[in-house]
């Protein structure tokens, strides 16, 4: 027998101000608060709690620094900062770490002075690194509980429908970021969500990236970020001959993989060579009359070009890389904004990465077991981000990593990577300027490549070539202290990053 809940008796007096607000409620009944301080106070934020941010403003972000400045002024301490990523522009956080405002960081990546300071041991607690999918899962599972999300948005209506652009209010597109994909999960799961916007637009702000139902307070601020740092006009194809050579080889791997067919799906990771692969696939697609069903992930202008040419039917956009991509999201019907859960959460069987045929990924280093490092440099210092690397490598049917054999005098195919970020088990093919190596576990791929006259090289041979040119690099010296914990997308620990010796 069903238990019947004891319903409270209906009382018309509980309907607030229905009659009185008839004329005025549009102005008064909204979520806009007078200042960031006020929003913070209302949110109930306390010392020791978790605050979150997104990184859609990339290196032009002013939200994180400004919010931290306010929190510092208000006397907050011991906060857990969970951002979808952090960049060079977040150098000021060093001061807030020193003063105890921030005591823990949770991010996809770190770059610049902040990364340098953390690698040198500035923090008591290690930084937790998560992939975009891993972060989504951690938030969904409750492992990462967000108390207050501070989410910057180029447009927001008075009730909280927020977006990275506006379709009908051009003013809001002065500072445009396109997709708010990584912020969606924060808004959905945070106990309180505060939108910081430079443009309050009329209700309803549709399409929205974040719906008003997930927003508690809105603060109008004059400055959310520097448009130049947020995005450039269009990511230009590289003209670097080495990167073009790698891209051409990668495109040949793709067209001879057996997965290149009408209706295939693909993702191009960031990085010159990886983005340039699109340019070399265009002609074979036209020649064979193939159309891709969708392109996924970070979307750049070059992918938009293929979409607008009719070569890629749909774009699933978790992050718009450039102005062209952001404008396409605004204007193109089949360019869809998606959340990090939709994109890559390992808790979501339907995650788009699981539908992906091919992904082309960059790397800092790859080792002879195909493990990939995208986090730490040859000096051991943190200088990158996991991004969707682990997620797409695990999900895609063919994961191709593109990397030059050498960067300057630094070998990029090594015996053992500094930091394991993506396990070799998920990497199928490595494309370098000195040859193509297939993971020996992928017998089928090796067979297909050979049948199609694609010349392969043993990855150990690549490592040897690198060593003959550079000599064996001296091992990096680390201290005992752990400054970073690298999680795999399932939440387990895949590696640790140690403090570097000065």
């Amino acid at each position, binding site marked *: 027998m069903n238990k019947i809940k004891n319903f409270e008796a209906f009382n018309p007096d509980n309907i607030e101000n229905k009659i009185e607000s008839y004329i005025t409620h549009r102005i008064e009944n909204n979520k806009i608060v007078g200042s960031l301080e006020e929003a913070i106070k209302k949110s109930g934020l306390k010392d020791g709690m978790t605050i979150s941010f997104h990184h859609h403003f990339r290196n032009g972000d002013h939200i994180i620094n400004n919010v931290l400045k306010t929190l510092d002024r208000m006397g907050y301490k011991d906060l857990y900062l969970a951002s979808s990523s952090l960049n060079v522009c977040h150098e000021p956080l060093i001061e807030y770490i020193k003063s105890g405002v921030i005591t823990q960081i949770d991010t996809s990546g770190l770059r610049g002075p902040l990364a340098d300071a953390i690698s040198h041991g500035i923090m008591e607690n290690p930084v937790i690194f998560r992939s975009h999918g891993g972060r989504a899962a951690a938030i969904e599972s409750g492992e990462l509980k967000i108390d207050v999300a501070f989410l910057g948005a180029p447009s927001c209506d008075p009730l909280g429908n927020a977006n990275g652009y506006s379709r009908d209010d051009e003013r809001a597109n002065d500072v445009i970021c396109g997709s708010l994909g990584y912020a969606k999960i924060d808004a959905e799961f945070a106990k309180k969500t505060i939108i910081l916007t430079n443009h309050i637009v009329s209700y309803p702000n549709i399409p929205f990236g974040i719906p008003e139902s997930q927003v508690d307070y809105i603060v109008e601020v004059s400055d959310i970020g520097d448009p130049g740092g947020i995005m450039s006009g269009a990511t230009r194809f590289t003209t670097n001959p*080495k990167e073009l050579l790698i891209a051409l080889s990668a495109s040949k791997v793709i067209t001879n993989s057996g997965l290149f067919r009408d209706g295939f799906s693909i993702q191009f990771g960031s990085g010159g060579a990886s983005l340039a692969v699109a340019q070399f696939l265009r002609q074979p697609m036209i020649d064979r009359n193939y159309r891709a069903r969708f392109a996924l992930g970070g979307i750049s202008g070059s992918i938009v070009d293929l979409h607008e040419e009719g070569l890629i039917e749909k774009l699933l956009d978790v992050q718009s890389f450039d102005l062209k991509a952001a404008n396409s999201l605004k204007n193109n019907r089949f360019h869809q904004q998606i959340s990090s859960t939709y994109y890559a959460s390992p808790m979501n069987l339907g995650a788009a990465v699981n539908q992906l045929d091919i992904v082309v990924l960059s790397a800092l280093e790859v080792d002879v077991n195909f493990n990939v490092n995208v986090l730490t440099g040859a000096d051991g210092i943190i200088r990158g981000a996991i991004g969707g690397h682990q997620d797409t490598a695990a999900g895609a049917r063919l994961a191709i990593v593109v990397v030059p054999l050498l960067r300057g005098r630094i070998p990029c195919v090594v015996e053992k990577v500094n930091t394991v970020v993506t396990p070799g088990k998920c990497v199928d093919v490595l494309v370098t300027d*000195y040859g193509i190596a297939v993971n020996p576990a992928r017998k089928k791929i090796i067979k297909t490549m050979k049948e199609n006259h694609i010349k392969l090289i043993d990855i150990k041979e690549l490592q040897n070539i690198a060593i*003959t*040119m550079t000599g064996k690099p001296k091992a990096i010296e680390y201290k005992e202290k752990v400054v970073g914990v690298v999680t795999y997308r399932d939440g387990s620990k895949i590696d640790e990053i140690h403090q570097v010796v000065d």
Partner: protein
Amino acid sequence: MTKLRRTMLFVPGNNTSMVVNAGIYPVDSLMFDLEDSVSLDQKDNARFVLHEALKTINYQNKELIVRINSLSNGMGQTDLDYLIPLGKVAIRLPKTDSSQDIIDCESYIEKIEKRCGMKVGTTKMMAAIESANGVLNAYSIAHASKRLIGIALGAEDLVTDLHTRRSPGGLELSFARSMILMAARSAGISAIDTVFSDLNDMEGFRSEVEMIKQLGFDGKSIINPRQIETIVEIFSPTEKEIIAALEIVDVMKEAAKMGKGVVSLHGKMVDKPIIERAKRVLETAKVTGQLARIEDEYYE
């Protein structure tokens, strides 16, 4: 085996990164430059970089050439002192005006070879023709030394000498190209065309490559790897050409058994020059790796 010289990539000798990585590009020849792309104060650096790179780096089976400085100011001799003992590179002499230039360079090379205990004649040479005198002397230049593997047109200096400038279509170079080609064929060496410097004009580049292929050139100097693919495409025999060549060679083998010198194939006469062309196509296809694949299919 036929030596293909379809693509000859210029690599500035003082650009360490380019010198180190030059081997990754699918070109037939690498031409490291010590001359015009290296400023005067960088000459020593470039010689050192090149010397070390050539010693350590495996450029696989690519032909290695170094464009040296002129011998008239002593710089060319220093270049040769650095390079010849390595025994790895051919020498491209710039601005060759007469056979005497080749003879002078050769005698300096010979001295070094003797001093180092190398077999005299090991070091191969190329000559770049970049002046009216050079063009008119192309025949004697091409025949000036057994070391010569080819002569090349250097158009920028030449058009200046001719009081003109380069144009699309290259009308101003038509005499020089023909002259150089005749001289090269007369001496049995390669004829290499000049660079095409507008990297963004891929269409203009393509039509120039098609033209020099039609003239009979063996290949072209290039300044950027982006130009490789077009040349390789135009200079590689097509599948159709390779199959036709296989047929011609087959039919002639049969004819020879019957003691015939001329036969008919698909209603067309096949005689000696046609067979020679067919053999050349097959030789090229062998080097490009096309033959193995097409032969399999052809004989199936």
